[in-house]
């Protein structure tokens, strides 16, 4: 599944980072790489972008961007 499908409060392990060009490089730089744990914290009031917790900090990204990140859901 992809990150945008993960429910609020759910945890996942990143399995693959798709996308291309600058977007992908930015995601990698921010620590979004395979085998990293993420938590979906919330969605913005209008449903987009989303807020995630990764490597000890909060990051926001749009659902379109989250679609590029493949995850495997895990229990807390």
């Amino acid at each position: 599944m992809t990150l945008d499908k993960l429910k609020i409060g759910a945890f996942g392990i990143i399995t693959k980072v798709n996308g291309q060009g600058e977007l992908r490089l930015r995601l990698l730089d921010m620590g979004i790489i395979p085998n990293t744990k993420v938590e979906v914290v919330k969605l913005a009031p209008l449903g987009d972008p989303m807020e995630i917790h990764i490597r000890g900090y909060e990051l926001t990204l749009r659902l379109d961007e989250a679609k590029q990140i493949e995850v495997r859901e895990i229990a807390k």
Partner: protein
Amino acid sequence: MILALVGNQNSGKTTLFNQLTGANQHVGNFPGVTVEQKTGEIKGVKDTLLVDLPGIYSLRPFSSEELITRDFILRHKPDGIINIVDATNIERNLYLSLQLIELGYPIVIALNMMDEVRNNGGSIDEKKLSHRLGVPVVPISAINKEGLDNLVNAITSTVQNNLYPKKLDFVKNGAMHRLVQKVTGIVSANAQKVKISPRFAATKVIENDNPIITMLDLSKAQLNLVESAIKAMENELKLDRNAALADMRYAFIENICADAVVKGSESKERKLSLKIDKILTHKFAAIPIFLLIMFTIFYLTFEVVGKFFSDILAMGINEVIKICDKGFTAYGLNPIVKSLILNGAICGVGSVLSFLPIIITLFFFLSILEDSGYMARVAFFMDKLLRKIGLSGKSIVPLLIGFGCSVPAIMATRTLSSSRDRKMTILLTPYVSCSAKIPVFAMFTAAFFPKHRALVMITLYILAIIIGIAVALIMKKTVFKGKPVSFIMELPNYRFPSVKSVLLLMWEKAREFILKAFTVIFTVTIIIWFLQTFDYKLNIVDHNDDSLLALIGKVIAPIFRPLGFNDWRISTSLIVGFSAKEAVVSSLNVLFGASILQSGAFTTASAASFLVFTLLYTPCVAAVATMRKELNSTSKTLLIVLAQCLIAWIAGFIVYKMGALL
């Protein structure tokens, strides 16, 4: 000794800069608030120049601001680097550190916010960290001034003794190790020729970083060798080059952290931030709360705090005028000189100076919004709406700063990563009415709409925003078509704004404003006084209708006849307003004396159309110059200025016709 201060956004970089240099500088909690390179001498250390560079996450720049940092490091080659690392967020911060270490400059890592780490029961073994990274590591707390002397000693001795970082191998063996070794060998000679570290050059070549590859001037044969080596690694690891590099760096960091970092419990700061966000970014409450906050800020600024102080200041200025008048008369001063001082200088400058408290108050609130971390939240929940008009959530920061002044607002657009978003935001900033127009609004609403002052002011602000949105939509459909760019932004924890930095900012703004009042506005009022006192034969006129100024103003005045004010004094004041918007008020005061209401030059309807025109016409010369610099195009800037004047004229015309019907 030139030292670069480099770190992630929100790592406390600017606070450290302020503590080390004592310079007047603004601290921001929004990703990337530092818009200019600020420099200063480190207190107590002669011949040092510390350069505060915009926050970056990686030496691979995305926004024009991040490019500034990388270019500075690579081209200006500082003697040393202070790399500030947020200890509470150490993994992602070290990702940049590894790249900086690869550069091979003398470097010291300042491990900031160690107090927060300790308070949450964590600890970091800086000796182990320093050993593993091969560079000095100094724990500090910039905000509490802890460890700063150690940091200064460490960086000065590192630079003076030419202590370069030890060579770091992120992986000891495997495909990535072999690749980095091999590429370093291939590019080594070229890298030494342009004086960059071979190891750094190798990583950048593997990343396919074009500016660096061009800089290295590699031959076709070298590039082919590199390419085949990369292909071999990709096949072996089943990872592409960029993922493999990021993976290598983060794996190395995780390994070091497992060794040197004891994580505490979930940080109190984060828990508090999550709680605050339950309300401030609540599904239904977020936007109403934001509007309420903005409304409260404007209410407090104009109706309560600002007004109170402005009234006192205005009274004081009036007293000064009265006392001077008496004194000059008793002394028997030449009436022309007396008129120059009283009607020209004091009246003009004074009428503007009394708005100082309002402007300072507004900047006070804006800096709190920014430093606390709230602006990043606003960007987060406004992104979807702003995207509808072709902007990104990050555009909200420049736009809100625009309520204070367009100049820093236009400069703040550098934090936007796409040039399309940047241009759009620059174009729209003038539709957020800046604080220099407040004196005009205040004077006119007091004279013509005394019962509905606040309502008229708010209507003006909203009208400008609505027109701005319309302009944005038209631009989005025509000139700025194209895909939206990504919105990847850190949400920092909420922090109490530092009192020192807020006060420094207010002082800086007060100084700028007073300086403006006594330079630009002073000069303009003297010129106006001169032009309205003499005719073209330099005789003193009995009535300013015969003056030089009237001659000029009368040529332009007819343009404004359809807007209801066909008076040369008004058209003159609008032209003068191009130098600074406050000058509209000062020149009207000089030209009309104190009685603009009784002069009969305005009806209620034409006062309204005048306000709308002033609201929308070209921003002042300082803002236009900044716009030209940031857009890097004189023709585009001129086009924007003309379009804005035209839009202002049309809007003023419509308002006047509507007013005449009522």
